[in-house]
């Protein structure tokens, strides 16, 4: 019989720990039970016995297959108790190979036995530690099949434990595919059934839902399998649909909605599927309301953000809800970073595509203040989410002009972009800036002071084409109707070398925007003359490079338009006129089969021949000599160019009447 002493101190514990090494099985058993009873419930005791080096012996007793199963059981239970201690306790256990030992045990231990259950409980406790020792579980098909068998057949406790372990372990594509092959979907489905007239037990449902979610996340193959997996007469989506209803515990409904969301995003369910439209979406909206706890609301907002991220019909559907905007605004106001992040992301998703929804969001009381606060939030996850929100809203920049000016969103945005931002922030932030620059003439000057031009020019040098595009596009917008000072700054900062590099970019869109930038720079007469006086050779060279190179038609069109703009300048006209090469090309393009190129060439010609300008006669003569007049006449006669006839006639009318 055991001694029921009142308490153990470290001295007396040493005595029974020694007995663990005895060759007498009875003594070992007694020592194990005493040890077990001393550590259950007390972290202090756990730490004490671990530091006395008891773990390796326990692992031995646990794993040795020839030993009495009762000894193995008590040893495993004791390990399981140690695994419920402090994070340091668990780290010690992991360090000494506990996770690996348990996994090994599970390969051979008879299913349905208490020993298996104890091992699973211990493993589950260890896997609840962060970071979990996922390496201890190899993606071995035999092992996984065994585990999923346990998940289907064993006791409630064992099934729940193994599913919790697998849910944590399933962290990537390899694991997702392996688990699917091993039949984890059907095991999870079996756990999702709630018998009629019984209370759904979250402790049983939640692990299975988490496993399913982890498996389906961004994996179309697995999602397809899950779609078709049935338990009894219900498929997984149907089982999930039952779980999102109002009478289910909130956590269960949330996780079930999350599974349906992942299935939809991975392509297994269409956006108009009734289980999304009448199941997941309303459930998530409902969980965002004020009466729920902050945790639930934060998670619901995050999942809803993911669900509505891409599909406009879902965005519209969610926006119909009469309470969602104010509920989300309230979530933004919560303390925790997770809540703010979830709410901002949700606004970002909802406002991504639809102008009316954006209007609704902007008009939500007090939201813009929250957005600015979010941009200033020290937590990078929150500020990134706020930028995403701003990005969506900035697509209606005309609508927001007053709102944005009032709240000076660009200042914190610039700060974020200047503060060594990560790649995601850089991408979204620069896109946002790009949109904002389209409208904010007044704001441009202070932006210069904040180093906007330098930052954008740097972006054009990045290896990610999306970032280059944002950079050059933003510069293009910045140059639109800008003051000469701004234009000079841009040219100076970007430099002609970079300009040529961008004109040779692998991404056509970048080239287009570079040319667009040139076009914007070369607008209004004084600017054109001022810029061309300094950069004429580089600009002309750039135009020629594009006209001569094998670029698509729309790119060449841009180059011709630039030429046209140059042709509008007072002094700059001469630059074109002096370049015979360009003039000959002009003639060619007037007869080009591609209509838009004809039109662009016509624009150039029209500007060059304009009668009202000084030296027009000389220019007209030169151009006629080179064949421009003939080309224009041909155009006028051509049926294909009917839509250009008015412009052609105007151009021809400029010529003094001489043949």
């Amino acid at each position, binding site marked *: 019989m*055991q001694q*029921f*002493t*009142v*308490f153990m*101190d470290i001295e007396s514990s040493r005595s029974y720990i020694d007995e663990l090494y005895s060759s007498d099985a009875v003594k070992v058993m007694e020592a194990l*039970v005493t040890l*077990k*009873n001393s550590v*259950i*419930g*007390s*972290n*202090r005791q756990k730490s004490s016995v671990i530091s006395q080096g008891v773990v390796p012996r326990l692992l031995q007793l646990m794993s040795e297959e020839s030993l009495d199963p009762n000894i193995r059981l008590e040893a495993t*239970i004791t390990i*399981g*108790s140690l695994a*419920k201690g402090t994070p340091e306790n668990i780290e010690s256990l992991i360090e000494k190979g506990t996770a690996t030992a348990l996994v090994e045990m599970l390969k051979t231990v008879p299913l349905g036995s208490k020993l298996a259950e*104890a091992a699973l*409980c211990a493993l589950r406790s260890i896997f609840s530690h962060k970071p979990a020792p996922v390496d201890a579980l190899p993606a071995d098909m035999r092992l996984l099949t065994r585990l999923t068998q346990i998940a289907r057949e064993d006791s*409630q406790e064992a099934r729940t434990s193994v599913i919790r372990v697998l849910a944590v372990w399933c962290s990537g594509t390899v694991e997702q595919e392996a688990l699917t092959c091993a039949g984890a979907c059907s095991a999870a489905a079996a756990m999702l059934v709630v018998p009629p007239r*019984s*209370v759904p*037990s979250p*402790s049983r449902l939640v692990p299975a839902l988490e496993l399913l979610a982890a498996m389906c996340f961004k994996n179309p193959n697995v999602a397809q399998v899950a779609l078709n997996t049935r338990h009894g007469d219900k498929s997984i989506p149907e089982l999930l649909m039952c779980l999102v209803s109002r009478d289910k515990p909130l956590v269960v409904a949330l996780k079930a909605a999350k599974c349906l969301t992942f299935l939809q995003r991975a392509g297994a369910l269409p956006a108009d599927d009734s289980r999304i439209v009448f199941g997941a979406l309303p459930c998530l909206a409902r969980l965002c309301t004020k009466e729920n706890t902050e945790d639930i609301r934060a998670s619901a907002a995050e999942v809803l953000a993911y669900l509505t991220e891409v599909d406009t019909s879902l965005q519209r559907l969610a926006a119909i809800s009469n309470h969602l905007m104010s509920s989300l605004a309230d979530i933004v106001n919560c303390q925790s970073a997770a809540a703010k992040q979830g709410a901002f992301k949700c606004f970002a998703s909802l406002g991504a595509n639809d102008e009316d929804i954006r209007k609704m969001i902007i008009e939500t009381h007090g939201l813009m203040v929250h957005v600015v606060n979010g941009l200033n939030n020290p937590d990078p996850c929150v500020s990134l989410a706020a930028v995403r929100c701003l990005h969506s809203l900035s697509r209606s920049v005309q609508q927001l002009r007053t709102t944005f000016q009032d709240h000076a969103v660009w200042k914190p945005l610039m700060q974020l972009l200047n503060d060594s931002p990560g790649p995601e922030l850089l991408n979204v932030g620069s896109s946002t800036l790009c949109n904002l620059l389209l409208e904010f003439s007044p704001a441009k000057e202070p932006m210069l002071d904040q180093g906007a031009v330098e930052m954008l020019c740097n972006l054009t040098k990045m290896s990610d084409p999306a970032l280059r595009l944002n950079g050059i596009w933003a510069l293009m917008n910045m140059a639109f109707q800008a003051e000469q000072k701004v234009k000079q700054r841009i040219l100076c900062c970007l430099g002609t070398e970079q300009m040529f590099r961008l004109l040779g970019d692998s991404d056509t869109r970048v080239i287009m925007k570079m040319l667009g930038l040139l076009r914007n720079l070369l607008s209004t007469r004084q600017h054109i003359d001022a810029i061309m006086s300094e950069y004429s050779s580089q600009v002309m060279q750039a135009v020629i490079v594009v006209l001569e190179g094998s670029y698509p038609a729309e790119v060449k069109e841009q180059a011709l338009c630039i030429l046209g703009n140059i042709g509008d300048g007072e002094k700059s006209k001469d630059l074109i006129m002096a370049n015979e090469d360009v003039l000959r090309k002009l003639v060619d393009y007037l007869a080009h089969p591609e209509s838009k190129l004809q039109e662009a060439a016509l624009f150039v010609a029209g500007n060059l021949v304009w009668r009202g300008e000084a030296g027009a006669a000389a220019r007209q003569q030169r151009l006629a000599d080179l064949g421009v007049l003939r080309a224009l006449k041909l155009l006028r006669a051509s049926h294909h160019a009917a839509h250009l006839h008015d412009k052609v006639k105007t151009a021809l009318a400029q010529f003094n009447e001489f043949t």
Partner: protein
Amino acid sequence: MSFENNSNGNEKEERKYSHERNKSDELQLSRTDMNMLIMNYLVTEGFKEAALKFQQEAGLQEPALCSSLDERIMIREAVQGGRIPEAIAMVNSLHPELLDNDRYLYFHLQQLQLLELIRAGRAEEALAFASATLAEAGANDANALTELERSLALLAFPDPHTSPFADLLLPSHGQKIASELNAAILKMENQEYTNPKLCSLLRMILWSQSELDKHNIKYPKMTDLANATIGQPK
């Protein structure tokens, strides 16, 4: 919209709320339901012998005895008898994770042990025990700390049974912890009802009465739960 204000209307109003005693007698309660409630109470609380006897006398079918009924009975007896280490060892053998998962319950059991030492007048041992084991829970949980302080305060009094915290030494405290432990075991076994349904019924009565009181509605109120005395509506 107007209502005819005649005497008939008024009578109807009153009849809606006032309730004659014999009307409630008309409510039929099935004997079987009553017996099941009693059986549920006996089984949940662990009165096995009484349950079996009752089953015989009432002619009921085999009661749904949970697998752990015997163990729960023994554990309850150990707790109420002050043999705490024995009780803890039995719980650990039945459900090894229970006390690790519910540290507050573990603390309550340890506290009972402390109270045993105090009751026996072993003050020095009590203090040593408190600092070795209970201090840990007290450090992590504010409620536990308060209860620990109250328990140790008993030592300050020459006769703890007359101190302000004497309630801790009464058997009712031990019973309360025993019930707590019992419910925890049932919960661990995923039993739907960890408390007897009769308890829930009583709670419902109290809640309903308080709701009716809030709205100042006249009804026959059960003023004494233990004797089921129903007073006349005022």
